[in-house]
């Protein structure tokens, strides 16, 4: 186990290093020579200021020195300063992350429960009306772009309710849980539902397919032959094995979203990592964009390692090496 973890962590570091190279190529080399210093110096900067910025960030040195400097700062946890907000990127990300975390954790709980339950019910009653209904619903929500569902929910539950005098949900924004737990919860209900419904569909299908496979296995027949109650067969024996592919998907999805649930955050005006990144991209606030991309990639890499480790815990047949 320890050896496996070390190997996976080393691989993760390799991937992260590749991400920094990719980020560097896209953001520093991509825009062409001199463009970065001009962007960082701001639109009204004089050529002297641009030259000074360029010199201070070593942008006038050979590429390997530049990249080395970039990596060096990164390794020290220094993501630089936002040009627009006169704030360190670390503190910007620190402020945005809890918002994304609130959104993702809540909806992740919701969608795994929805997805796995509907998937198990579908598999146990395969080809029944219930199964067909769940399959159709899953297809509809799977096909539904996140922003379409979010905006339609806002239209019905925010706009329509509000003009009829019912102020059930805020239209946008985020309240911190420490400031007002009730407002925090109220503001998150629609974003949670949006993200959960579009994500749950995949889990319904995945659980159903994997449960159907497992239910045909010999050990399930053995368990039934022993006279074990069906409920116990399904939840104790079948579900445990069927969950392996579900856990893989779950880890990756949660990891990707922790780097910013871009669309949901934009639709509901929640200043999380995704919203911050989109804004920074539009303002060409380079250090913030790079910071979010690196945090997001780290979340994915970390999630992958956790998933692989969980494999062994869930499925005794998997041996790590």
């Amino acid at each position, binding site marked *: 186990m320890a050896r496996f973890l070390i190997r996976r962590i080393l691989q993760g570091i390799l991937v992260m290093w590749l991400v920094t190279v990719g980020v560097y190529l896209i953001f520093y080399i991509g825009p062409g020579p001199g463009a970065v210093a001009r962007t960082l110096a701001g639109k009204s900067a004089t050529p002297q200021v641009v030259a000074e910025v360029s010199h201070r960030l070593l942008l006038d040195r050979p590429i390997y020195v530049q990249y080395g400097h970039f990596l060096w700062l990164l390794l020290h946890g220094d993501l630089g300063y936002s040009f627009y907000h006169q704030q360190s990127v670390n503190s910007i990300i620190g402020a945005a992350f809890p918002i994304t975390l609130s959104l993702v954790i809540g909806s992740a709980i919701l969608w795994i429960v929805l997805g796995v339950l509907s998937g198990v019910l579908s598999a146990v009653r395969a080809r029944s009306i219930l199964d067909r209904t769940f399959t159709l619903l899953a297809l509809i929500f799977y096909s539904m*772009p996140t*922003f379409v569902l979010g905006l339609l929910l806002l239209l019905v539950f925010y706009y329509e309710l509000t003009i009829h005098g019912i102020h059930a949900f805020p239209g946008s924004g985020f309240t911190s849980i420490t400031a007002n737990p009730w407002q925090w919860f109220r503001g998150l209900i629609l974003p949670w539902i949006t993200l959960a419904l579009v994500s749950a569909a995949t889990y319904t299908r995945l659980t159903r397919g994997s449960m159907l496979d497992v239910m045909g296995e010999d050990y399930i027949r053995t368990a039934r032959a022993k006279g074990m109650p069906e409920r116990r067969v399904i939840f104790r024996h079948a579900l445990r094995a069927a969950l392996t592919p579900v856990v893989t998907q779950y880890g990756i999805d949660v990891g990707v979203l922790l*780097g910013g649930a871009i669309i949901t955050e934009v639709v509901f005006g929640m200043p999380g990592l995704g919203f911050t990144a989109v804004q920074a*991209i539009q303002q060409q606030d380079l250090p913030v964009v790079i910071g979010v991309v690196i945090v997001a990639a780290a979340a*994915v890499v970390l999630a992958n390692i956790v998933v692989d480790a969980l494999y062994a815990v869930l499925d005794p047949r998997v041996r790590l090496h």
Partner: protein
Amino acid sequence: MSQSLASVEPPPTEPPAGGGEGAPVRKIEGRSPWRLGLERLVRDRAAMISLGVIVIIVLVAILAPVIAAITGHGPNQTFQSIGLTAIGQPKGPNATFLLGTDDQGRDIMVRIAYGARISLIVGVLATALTVAVGAIVGLIAGYFGGVTDSILARFMDWLLAIPFLLFAISLVTIIGAGLTVVIIVIGFFGWASVGRIVRGQVLSIKEREFVEAARALGSGPWRIMFIDILPNVIAPIIVYSTLLIPLSIVTEASLSFLGVGIPAPTADWGQMISASQSVYQYGAWWYLVFPSAALLITTLAFNIFGDGVRDAFDPRGDQLFV
């Protein structure tokens, strides 16, 4: 089994007259896996209905200028006087504008028809690019193995690990938005999943006798890869492609929704939905609802059809024809 590919061409027809009425012995006819798959697909009612919907959407896209001519409203034509209310708000569905107007007094129905073109073009071309690159890289990685495979496989892992939408937005912002850029960006970030599937298939196929025979006959690696192996992985590629089309359409719409996709004033569904945010809170629900419905119906039809294709050609859900 690559020989059986010859029978892809003819459409599924009834067995020839040899087994007709009165004939004492029914001729037993060999049917290729392709033929069996097509027959299964045609029997799938949901898939056939969604195929019908797809055909209608394609027709709407092709006939968009006709729709514009019938209504007399161009896709970018603004009707300041008849298309907007007295206070400059969009007008709801009425006899002149069947699906209402947008915030600039343009006909939403005509714009939805033109928007279908963008969605379908991106859906098909981005998927084609994704599949072509994925298949070539997957073939190379799987066939050559060794160091080539390790490097390519790591690269695919990397592509699958990075936050796609974030990178896509950044790239489009730097290169500049536009139809071609959107297609290339979707293709660039999407091919790794196809590459992984093809690589896995090639790994098992390249050990088979007919590949060995081809090598013994003196075929070079490229000929073996594209003439002998490729036809055998075409089926999973087709199955995956049909499911990639709706994904590409949603990605394009999402990029346009975020303002980094197809630039205005070109009619585009994602962009229309994004623009509707500024007015639906004043009651213009039609501006949000109709383009959303168009987008949802399109992705749903492609997903149901893709599901049908997978069930028909890949009933076990794993290796196919191999």
